[in-house]
């Protein structure tokens, strides 16, 4: 006899820890929550009395706002702490911060930090649930979940699709989580970008590496461009943004080889004219704004599920 499925994760540290079944369940839950954001009174009492702390050691506008809106629409009490990693480094350690926060009895800590693995460190030293809102170059699980939600919504499925991810794969926690997630859900992930931005051993994560961006995009169902950080020119990883745009930027011509109904994604913020041209970013194939909308629903689902999924 098959046991009834239950979502059993206390923390959301990465896509790596989630099974395909977990991911499907999160996406189902998120879809059912989407409607709440369309009501005139966008609030349900589900997480009333729960305390959510947003502990952001790195600047973020979109992700933090999205988490905060999600928590508030679930009626949780939310608090924001912004700290620069450097000042925290001089003073309190992350473990001390965790201990102090524990004393104030929060239920959920949403953390963003420039050090890979810091949510794991926090989770080892805190009683609350921890959600990773982006750690170093490691993972950004809620972003990958909202990306998968958007793809499933637009394509009706994930399994069997060809996903092209183009850009800075080395430094992108979004790429990392998406490779793991889409692969777990049965899609084929092709990555492309300057070889200087393709990390060692990416094949072992399940991605297929294409040296020519045309090969990645050909017959793709989904084309996702990643943000190129301007300082990457210094390492030296890139000769110039102009050269990047010319050879790896997503434009109309390149997209002609993708499936006619391919969708265009970007985790934002976009460098227009670098990762993609204006017309692609704003074109009818672009689902970038749907990603943002789904972000709130996915984060509502995560908050709900790690709190045990009760009192719905």
């Amino acid at each position, binding site marked *: 006899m098959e046991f009834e499925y239950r979502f059993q994760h206390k923390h959301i540290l990465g896509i790596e820890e989630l099974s395909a079944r977990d991911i499907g369940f999160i996406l189902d839950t998120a879809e059912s929550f989407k409607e709440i954001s369309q009501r005139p009174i966008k609030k349900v009492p589900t997480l009333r009395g729960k305390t959510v702390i947003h502990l952001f050691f790195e600047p973020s506008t979109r992700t933090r706002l999205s988490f905060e809106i999600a928590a508030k629409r679930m009626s949780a009490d939310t608090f924001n702490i912004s700290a620069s990693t450097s000042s925290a480094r001089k003073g309190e*350690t992350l*473990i001390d911060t965790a201990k102090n926060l524990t004393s104030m009895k929060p239920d959920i800590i949403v953390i963003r930090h420039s050090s890979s693995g*810091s949510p*794991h460190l926090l989770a080892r030293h805190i009683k609350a649930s921890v959600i990773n809102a982006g750690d170093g170059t*490691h993972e950004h699980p809620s972003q990958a979940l909202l990306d998968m939600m958007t793809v499933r919504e637009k394509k009706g499925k994930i399994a069997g699709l060809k996903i092209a991810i183009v850009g800075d794969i080395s430094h992108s926690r979004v790429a990392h989580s998406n490779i793991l997630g889409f692969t777990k859900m049965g899609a084929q992930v092709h990555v492309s970008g300057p070889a200087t931005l393709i*990390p*060692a*051993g990416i094949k072992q*994560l399940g991605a297929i590496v294409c040296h020519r961006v045309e090969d990645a995009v050909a017959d793709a169902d989904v084309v996702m461009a990643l943000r190129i950080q301007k300082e990457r020119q210094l390492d030296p990883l890139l000769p110039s943004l102009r050269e990047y745009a010319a050879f790896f930027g997503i434009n109309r011509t390149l997209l002609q080889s993708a499936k006619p109904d391919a969708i265009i994604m970007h985790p934002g913020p976009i460098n227009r004219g670098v990762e993609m041209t204006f017309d692609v970013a704003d074109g009818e194939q672009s689902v970038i704004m749907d990603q943002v909308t789904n972000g709130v629903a996915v984060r509502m689902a995560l908050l709900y599920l790690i709190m045990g999924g009760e009192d719905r």
Partner: protein
Amino acid sequence: MNSFPALLLQNARIIDPVNNIDEPGDLLLAEGVIRQRGKAGSISCPANGLTIDLQGKWLVPGLIDMHVHLREPGEEYKETIASGTRAAAAGGFTAVACMPNTNPINDNQSVTSLILAKAAAEGSARVYPVGAISKNSKGTELAEYGELKKAGAVAVSDDGRPVANSQLMRRALEYSGNHNLLVISHAEEVSLSENGAMNEGALSTRLGLRGIPTVAEAIMIYRDLALAEYVGRPIHIAHISTRESVDLVRRAKNKGCPVTAETAPHYFTLTEEAVGVYNTRAKMNPPLRSADDLAAIRVGLRDGTIDAIATDHAPHSAMEKDVEFDQAANGIIGLETAVPLTLALVRENILTPARMIELLSVQPARILGVAGGSLSEGNSADITVIDPGKTFVYREEDIVSKSANSPFLGWELTGKAVLTIVAGRITFRDL
């Protein structure tokens, strides 16, 4: 500690590779030297002497760890000369060579003299200071090798701060010849390794950690071997961790170059997998590498490419280690686990017992040009007794070092030093 007019060590398995001995025997120590060596039961203990029966134990020349960090002066909260040499004694070491990256850096006779004075007053092992290659280990000007040597330094190294400037390394190799000081190379091309936190590969990508490629080590080893060959001076390569490094050293040796090399127990015991979920106790520099590198290191230990096992004992407190992985300090303690971890290779038939003693005693003495490494009559009584079958769980509360940053905590280990003697004085006893 305990001194006796005479000490008779009886019925031990005496392993003394220099004298080509591996047989049961007795050893009589008196007045700080090895007075007599003989067949088991052939020596009787003089009056007032102490006899210790060592049935089933190995009696070997005192182990020498040619690469440790004692942290004094400057970071006494991590380790001191007293605590570090106590840890050495507990691990079976009768001597250690301490690296110069203290605060202040050991780049001058005053710091060297301080270390030796402290060691004489408070130490439980012989201490051989290693001076800095360059002033303040900045990599620009040569340190004062003549004065360092006169004060008691045995070698020079910019360990932990690799010499980026090839001209400086060349000059160090040349000038060290005037003072008969060995140059020890911490081989790392920093432009490739900077800000790296672990071995570069699929695992570093999976964990989102910046990688340190194996070529960062190989390139610098190649440079330093080429420079040493060019100027005709010996060079010692510290803590090699990769297959390429083993290959480069082997090739240089085959050409007849006077190169020696060491590795550390963690490089033949653990792979990068030990990093697990951001375990900072598995973070060190060079980093733990792949299973293929580990296999090559083991072959190098067996075939003589690698001359010595040194622990790179690097104590750090919780302050440096209980933090985000990329922020955590590099290094692990090693003095108290080297014997069991090396014995594991003996049990796996990778090393013979005699080869193990060469790696841990004979060669370190020869490379550093210091006394020890054999049990010849008349030698200073620097002795280690190992119980190869003793099994114990390595627990934090049993650590003698001031720091506990070891990836081997909780491991069940087999083989342990049970008696350590320096110049006839018992510095550690667990039997």
